[in-house]
């Protein structure tokens, strides 16, 4: 090659001066350039060299041409050499072309994809082995084969000099075939490469489906959804965020209109800082968060799930959220309702309890725990320990039957208070079905009926007494008046100094008998009251009243009274007249028992008696005492030791009265030292405050 270049340079240096003014040079140069462009560089140079020689021999004068001896021979030699060179060149090119063709031909043969060739009419001239294996019928069907669908039109698209491959997809059965069709250069054949892209297509389809499904989900979900880009300030703190994408439900949940592309500060300038912190953290750490939060700026409660999407540096967060304001309001209302219910349960006087089964108790109101002095744990099996042992078997049986038949449970029992006192209670429980848990819960109440029961008994007594009392009043009046008249008449008769002794004796006996009758009526009929209703009675005041009545008699017999009132303001719920009657009888007895100048000690004490808070009144005299054999009988009717004046009814009536008031009357006595009568009465459950004087 350097030889060619140096030769060309030598020729050029010789010729340039001679050909400077001749247009021939231009032609040669143009020819060279043309050759180089059509063929290649070598051809261009050769053309230039040949041109130089031609110019040297045929155009220029010998003097100006290259000075070579035997120029004619040399030029022929040169011409020969040039032709030889050309021939060599053409041969080498041919060989290269052949190699290329062989290369191209061998390639389809080994290609793992089906390849076929047709002529320009569409007649198949070649199929590679893969094609034959994959589509054995292509040779038989020729252009009717789906692979060659629309073949003439396809080929027509190449035009005359078309080299650019064409791509298309055809369906063969269930398969999708991607074809690259190429018109082979300088050949009247068309080669098409086939690629089975069925799987690819399926994947693509699946992807598209998935995308569609996602879209559909995105568009149709009830929850709001948005994709945001969190923005940070120069200090790396989250400062705002932009809504990149929002779904249709978005606005319904948060009320932000046409948010896409806008930032939250544009839409809601007052948005709380807390939101930025949360989304900023998600964007930075990539940790998904689920949370419930209220936005004052938007005036709503939200339930949200936020997670990072895309690359960390994109700072993108997807947020799935729901407006739960109404749910929160419902919950708040529910809480409030629950609170109201609890307040109610904890403040009604009834004790309230809830049971899930015969032996599973879920709840006892605080007043039950306070009343029984137990804990919730101790009551888990029903708290039956507090029920009076006598009432327990019947109560448990009723409860068992009620639970097994799912009927209302009702019973009465005595319940032990923390201080040990048993009080009557009415218990009632109603079964309620809970559809949510599909179980039956028993809602029970236990009500203190002690006072009510007491009052009822007293009322019953009161009614009886009222009728008996009215009769007694009439009888007393009707008896006492004639008695008084007869007493007076006997006295008048006795005043006659001329009375024979036996008449006087008879009259004196009559007088004594009359006195007994008078005493009897006073003791039995005397307690009549105009208004007989039980009420709170101040015991000390009542005793004081009765003692006042007896003051003349006490003075007469020089009996000293020691009265210890004890705790102030002890009240019993009772018929005042009856209690007065009892106190009166006991004091009268004490006075009768005392010798002249004796002493009666009256004491009032607050005591705990028979499981109840009670009052004890004791009356101690300094009489002779009652012999043990009599002591057992003194409360029997018509038993008396005071033969002359006793009716035998006083203590009997008294003990009857005290029993009616759920109290007790007792006596202790010591011969020669005196007797002590004690009256126990339950204290009123609701004492009335005495007004300060």
């Amino acid at each position, binding site marked *: 090659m350097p030889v060619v270049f140096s030769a060309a340079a030598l020729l050029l240096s010789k010729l340039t001066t001679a050909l400077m003014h001749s247009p021939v040079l231009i032609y040669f140069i143009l020819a060279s350039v043309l050759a180089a462009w059509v063929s290649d560089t070598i051809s261009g140079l050769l053309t230039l060299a040949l041109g130089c020689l031609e110019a040297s021999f045929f155009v220029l004068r010998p003097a100006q041409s290259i000075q070579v001896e035997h120029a004619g021979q040399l030029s022929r030699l040169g011409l020969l050499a040039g032709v030889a060179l050309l021939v060599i060149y053409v041969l080498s090119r041919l060989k290269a072309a052949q190699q290329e063709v062989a290369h191209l031909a061998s390639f389809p043969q080994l290609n793992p994809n089906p390849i076929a060739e047709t002529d320009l009419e569409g007649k198949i001239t070649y199929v590679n082995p893969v094609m034959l294996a994959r589509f054995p019928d292509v040779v038989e069907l020729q252009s009717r084969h789906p692979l060659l669908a629309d073949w003439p039109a396809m080929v027509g698209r190449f035009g005359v000099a078309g080299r650019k491959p064409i791509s298309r997809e055809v369906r063969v059965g269930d398969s999708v075939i991607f074809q690259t069709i190429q018109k082979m250069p300088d050949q009247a054949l068309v080669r098409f490469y086939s690629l089975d892209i069925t799987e690819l297509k399926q994947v693509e389809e699946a992807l598209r489906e998935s995308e569609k499904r996602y879209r559909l989900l995105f568009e149709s979900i009830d929850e709001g959804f948005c994709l945001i880009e969190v923005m940070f300030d120069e200090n790396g703190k989250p400062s705002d965020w932009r809504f990149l994408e929002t779904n249709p439900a978005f606005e319904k949940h948060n009320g932000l209109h046409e948010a896409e592309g806008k930032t939250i500060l544009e839409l809601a300038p007052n948005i709380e800082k807390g939101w930025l912190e949360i989304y900023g953290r998600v964007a930075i750490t990539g940790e998904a968060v689920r949370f419930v939060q209220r936005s004052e700026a938007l005036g709503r409660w939200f339930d949200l799930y936020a997670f990072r999407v895309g690359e960390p540096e994109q700072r993108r967060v997807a947020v799935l959220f729901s407006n739960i304001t109404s749910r929160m309001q419902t919950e708040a209302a529910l809480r409030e309702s629950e609170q109201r219910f609890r307040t109610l349960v904890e403040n009604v006087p009834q004790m309230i309890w809830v049971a899930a089964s015969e032996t599973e108790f879920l709840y006892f109101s605080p007043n039950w725990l306070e009343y029984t002095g137990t804990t919730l744990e101790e009551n888990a099996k029903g708290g039956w320990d507090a029920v009076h042992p006598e009432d327990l078997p019947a109560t448990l049986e009723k409860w068992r039957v009620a639970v097994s038949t799912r009927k209302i449970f009702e019973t009465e029992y005595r319940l032990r208070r923390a201080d040990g006192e048993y009080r009557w209670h009415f218990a009632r429980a109603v079964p309620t079905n809970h559809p949510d848990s599909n179980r039956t819960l028993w809602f029970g109440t236990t009500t203190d009926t002690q006072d009510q029961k007491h009052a009822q008994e007293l009322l019953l007594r009161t009614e009886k007494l009222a009728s008996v009392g009215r009769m007694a*009043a009439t009888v007393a*009046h009707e008896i*006492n*008046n004639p008695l*008084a008249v007869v*007493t007076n008449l006997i*006295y008048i008769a006795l005043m006659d100094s001329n009375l024979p002794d036996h008449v006087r004796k008879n009259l004196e006996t009559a007088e004594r008998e009359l006195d007994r009758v008078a005493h009897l009526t006073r003791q039995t009929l005397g*307690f*009549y009251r105009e208004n007989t209703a039980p009420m709170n009675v101040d015991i000390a005041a009542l005793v004081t009243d009765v003692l006042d009545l007896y003051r003349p008699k006490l003075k007469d017999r020089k009996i000293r009274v020691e009265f210890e009132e004890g705790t102030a303001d002890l009240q019993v719920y009772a018929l005042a007249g009856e209690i007065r009657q009892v106190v*009166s009888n006991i004091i009268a007895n004490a006075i009768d028992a005392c010798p002249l100048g004796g002493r009666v000690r009256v004491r009032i004490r607050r005591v705990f008696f028979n499981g109840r808070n009670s009052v004890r009144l004791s009356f101690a005299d300094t009489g002779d005492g009652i012999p043990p054999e009599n002591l057992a009988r003194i409360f029997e009717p018509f038993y008396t030791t005071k033969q002359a004046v006793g009716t035998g009814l006083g203590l009997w009536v008294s003990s009857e009265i005290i029993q009616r008031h759920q109290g007790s009357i007792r006596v202790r006595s010591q011969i020669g030292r005196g007797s002590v009568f004690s009256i126990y009465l339950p204290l009123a459950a609701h004492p009335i405050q005495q007004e300060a004087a």
Partner: protein
Amino acid sequence: MGRRVLVVDDDRGIVDTLQTILTMAGYDCATSDNGNDALQLAGHFDPHLVISDVMMPGMSGVELALKLRNSHPRMRIILLSGHANTQDLLTQAGESLGTVLVLPKPYPPRELLKLVAELTDTAHSAA
């Protein structure tokens, strides 16, 4: 001058027998069978002591006692009652009747005379 005692009771037998007993004992005795007459009579007769029943038609003994307490503060009064609740009636009347003495009926005449003597004495020695 004898001591004057006024006896008030709607029961004729009581009035008569008490009058006899008191007269025999030397008292000057007037009687009435109802509270209104007794009130008038007390004006003219000016008794040292009034002995009255409690349950009477019209004016009751308690009422009579309260009125006499106002018009004749120094007059002594005994109420004879067939009922044990007279003390309560007096308490309900809301007045401290002080010298009013309540006695159960029947009351032994001997004892009654002792009280009458005592009360008529103090009535006039105080006057």
